[in-house]
């Protein structure tokens, strides 16, 4: 044990290495351990578009950032305190982000000339003074790992594979973590002799840190004072999937997912395919069009129908979505946004699909749009999307993004009793007499959901304009105007279900307006700015269409409002058109989330 144990509030740690170095796994282990130690935390993995980009190159670097704290936190952190760099490429790709004075642990075994060349380093950064100002911890990770597993008779490649556990052991020592979670996990995951090898490497890393007195001190990050409850660390994809499964249960109907794999949305398909015991049907379709069409078919058939995709897939689904709009069938389209346009930056995050969500269909073809704010919020948003789709009989667009999908945070598990049942209000035989498929609930304007198989409710729907009430094809000019207005009106009726926005912080100073995954960075920045004495408020939108009823008034209350988003100003444009209010547009479009520091700078500009 180090003589010195310091207590710190928060730590940002980043593991970086080759795609094959197991960094995601290492990060996840550190996360789970810290979660069980009671820290609040937030994580963000960042991987290359290639499956295994050429080893040793910057393009092939895979990273995992983890923010753990004894306070409440909302982002994976701006700048790491500690960087573990498994090779020169990882160093090169990440050193720019490290906090001044931060620590970087490097694997000196991978700094041969060839390694440097692959990373396109002209000279060895460990030797040319370029790392001045950082605490550089040089460790012959590969050699030490190899030595630690020597007795197991692994070959070179096999023993080298264990070095991530050696590094993990070192960081566990550094932050006084309990190794048992990872040890148990290794035993369950690996077959002999690899289980033993990984266990040995882990322990060796710990021991090495302990005995070599590599570090000035080790650190304690005490448990956070979180709201009482049962917690689980969860990614946005998993929370979203659980939300959908819960929605199916609460609606007492089969959940149907039609999907075609696409980064970063595929995990929704992967997760839901494991819920067959809930009767969940997942259909991996031949393409995105078939996926949404099958979902609409399932909705017609009475399922809670979902289709999930990312940008290019959303573009393909537009035509079919229009059919769901005109046939007024419930459907949830999940868009896990990624960097665009076109194929763009598939593994990076962005919020640039708000335009297509609101306006991306031909004709007057409105649909509700809502967005999740944090990984665990995905659970609630999924429930809400289904609830609205079913209640108002229309397709709902749900936006998340790569950052939310892959990022994780502790989720305070909901009491099951607190989850309200979803009333599907399905048409029954009893109303067969005089049944008309487009008769409506006067309040919600929802039409009947009459499911094939129900006696006496036989009817036909389709994409040609329909006569209100009967649902028959109609070319009548007045009816078309009526129906166009009605479809728009249905969206407005949802406002009844959309709570008013509440301003966090000051209502009359600078107001930041945000939506989606920027919640954490904006809220953190607002807290920081207020701590510095600035007068700042924050409004975060879950609902984009319809907008909350009091939003205009709220924005007007601010001395100066700014709209922060990861695109070129799509929400800003939309709110401008709605309210004709002059607001600042705060944007970033680099495939990466906002840093709180960037936002604080913007707040200062507006103050």
């Amino acid at each position, binding site marked *: 044990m180090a003589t010195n144990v310091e207590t710190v509030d928060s730590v940002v740690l980043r593991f970086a290495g080759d795609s094959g170095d197991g960094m995601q796994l290492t990060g996840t282990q550190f996360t789970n351990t810290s979660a069980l130690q009671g820290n609040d935390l937030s994580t963000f993995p960042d991987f290359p578009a290639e499956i295994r980009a050429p080893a040793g190159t910057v393009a092939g670097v895979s990273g995992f950032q983890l923010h753990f704290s004894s306070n409440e936190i909302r982002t994976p952190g701006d700048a790491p305190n500690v960087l573990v760099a498994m090779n020169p490429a990882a160093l090169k790709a990440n050193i720019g982000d490290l906090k001044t004075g931060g620590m970087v642990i490097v694997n000196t075994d991978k700094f041969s000339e060839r390694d440097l060349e692959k990373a396109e380093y002209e000279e060895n950064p460990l030797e040319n003074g370029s790392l001045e100002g950082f605490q550089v911890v040089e460790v012959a990770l590969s050699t030490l790992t190899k030595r630690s597993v020597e007795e197991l008779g692994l070959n070179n490649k096999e023993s080298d594979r264990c070095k991530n556990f050696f590094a993990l052991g070192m960081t566990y020592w550094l932050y006084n973590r309990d190794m048992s979670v990872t040890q148990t996990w290794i035993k369950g995951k690996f077959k002999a002799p690899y289980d033993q090898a990984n266990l040995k490497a882990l322990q060796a890393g710990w021991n090495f840190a302990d005995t070599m007195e590599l570090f000035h001190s080790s650190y304690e990050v005490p448990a956070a004072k979180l709201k009482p409850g049962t917690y689980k660390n969860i990614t946005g994809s998993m929370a979203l999937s659980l939300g959908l499964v819960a929605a199916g249960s609460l609606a007492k109907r089969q959940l149907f997912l039609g999907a075609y794999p696409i980064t970063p949305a595929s995990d929704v398909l992967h997760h839901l395919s494991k819920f067959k*015991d809930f009767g969940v049907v997942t259909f991996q379709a031949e393409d995105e*069009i*078939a*996926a949404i069409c099958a979902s609409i*078919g399932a909705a017609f058939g009475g399922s809670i129908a979902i289709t999930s995709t990312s940008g290019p897939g959303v573009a393909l689904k537009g035509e079919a979505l229009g059919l769901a709009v005109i046939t007024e069938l419930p459907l949830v389209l999940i868009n896990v946004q990624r960097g665009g346009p076109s194929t763009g930056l598939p593994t990076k995050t962005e919020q640039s699909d708000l335009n297509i969500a609101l306006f991306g269909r031909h004709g007057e073809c409105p649909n509700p749009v809502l967005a999740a704010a944090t990984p665990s919020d995905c659970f609630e948003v999924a429930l809400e999307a289904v609830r609205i789709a079913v209640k108002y009989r229309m397709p709902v667009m749900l936006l998340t993004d790569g950052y939310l999908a892959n990022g994780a945070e502790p989720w305070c598990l909901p009491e099951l009793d607190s989850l309200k049942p979803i009333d599907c209000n399905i048409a029954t035989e009893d109303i067969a007499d005089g049944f008309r498929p487009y008769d409506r609930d006067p309040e919600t304007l929802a039409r009947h959901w009459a*499911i094939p198989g129900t006696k006496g409710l*036989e009817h*036909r729907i389709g994409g040609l304009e329909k006569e209100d009430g009967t649902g028959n094809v109609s070319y009548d000019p007045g009816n078309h105007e009526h129906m166009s207005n009605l479809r728009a009106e249905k969206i407005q009726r949802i406002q009844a279900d959309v709570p008013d926005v509440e301003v966090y912080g000051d209502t009359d100073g600078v107001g930041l307006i945000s939506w989606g995954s920027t919640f954490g960075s904006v809220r953190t920045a607002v807290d920081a700015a207020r701590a510095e004495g600035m007068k700042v408020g924050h409004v975060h939108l879950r609902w984009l269409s319809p907008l909350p009823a009091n939003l205009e008034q709220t924005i007007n209350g601010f001395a100066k409002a700014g709209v922060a988003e990861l695109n070129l100003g799509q929400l800003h444009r939309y709110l401008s058109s709605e309210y004709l209010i002059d607001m600042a547009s705060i944007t970033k479009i680099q495939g990466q989330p906002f840093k709180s520091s960037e936002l604080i700078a913007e707040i200062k500009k507006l103050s």
Partner: protein
Amino acid sequence: MSTNEEAVTYKKKDFMSDQMIRWCPGCGDYSILSQVQTVFAGLGIPKEKFAVISGIGCSSRFPYYMNTYGFHTIHGRAPAFATGLKLANPDLSVWMITGDGDSLSIGGNHFIHILRRNVDIQLLMFNNRIYGLTKGQYSPTSEIGKKTKSTPMGSLDHPFEPCAVALGADASFVARTVDIFVKDLRGVIQDAADHRGTSFVEIFQNCNIFNDGAFNDVTDRKTRDETVVFVKHGEPLIFGSKDGPRKGLRVDKQFRLEVVEDVDPENPGDEILVHDETNPVLANLLARMRPPYPVAMGVIFRVKRATYDGGVAEQIKTAQQVPLAGDLTKAIYGGNTWVVD
């Protein structure tokens, strides 16, 4: 296909909807509609258990005229809608109506995928070798050289042979018939209804407005006997006028087809091919027969093969055997959790 829950008897007119039929007078679609209604009436399936799904095209107006559940969807995508509906509601008898353009042009991909998956629906393709609804452009089944509005010097695209495409996609049921061969048409529709899996039926359909007489060579009463062979499992491939001498089909060593003249139908002899609807190689041969060989009508290929929807249901059933299946508490509270008090 649906299980027959209660004894039901229907008349054809029970399946006629109140909507005015808007096809051109003389269109081949009328005859098909009539036969489908007739077959539905006889299937013993409760009316509310039928769903008719279509794409876009003249033919795809079909669901409006059927007094069942119906969905007139978007162009080319009907197989996907039908798949979703069948998975959501396996109890339904799902029928899909499509045109040659709808299913082989824009919808070609969904078409081959539903066939390989073998979703248990009936897929009736009205092949008029033209785009009707958009007023007469050539379609993927139009013959080369066809002059249409979009091909003033004649079309250049080699046409698909729909049954061959279906076989290439591993369809489990492939049949062909003609709008005006009423009895044969009805029989094939009935066979389609009886088959578990995707039953693909190509129906030659006359578009008297934009492609009148496209099938004259097979429909002309005078020559029909010479230009058509009706295939039936286990029976020799014999055709030719009932009055005159009959003809048979055989192949040589290298699978080249030959017409054998003067065959005795009672005793055709060993060399005449016997239709085996489970043989994919023979099916390919039959599907592609064109003059001077007769065009094959009837069930060209039919095999038993697991259905996709059946498999989905099976997996769910299996998954639901485990303890705590479908338990939300387990799903949410399971895994690595910790408690903060």
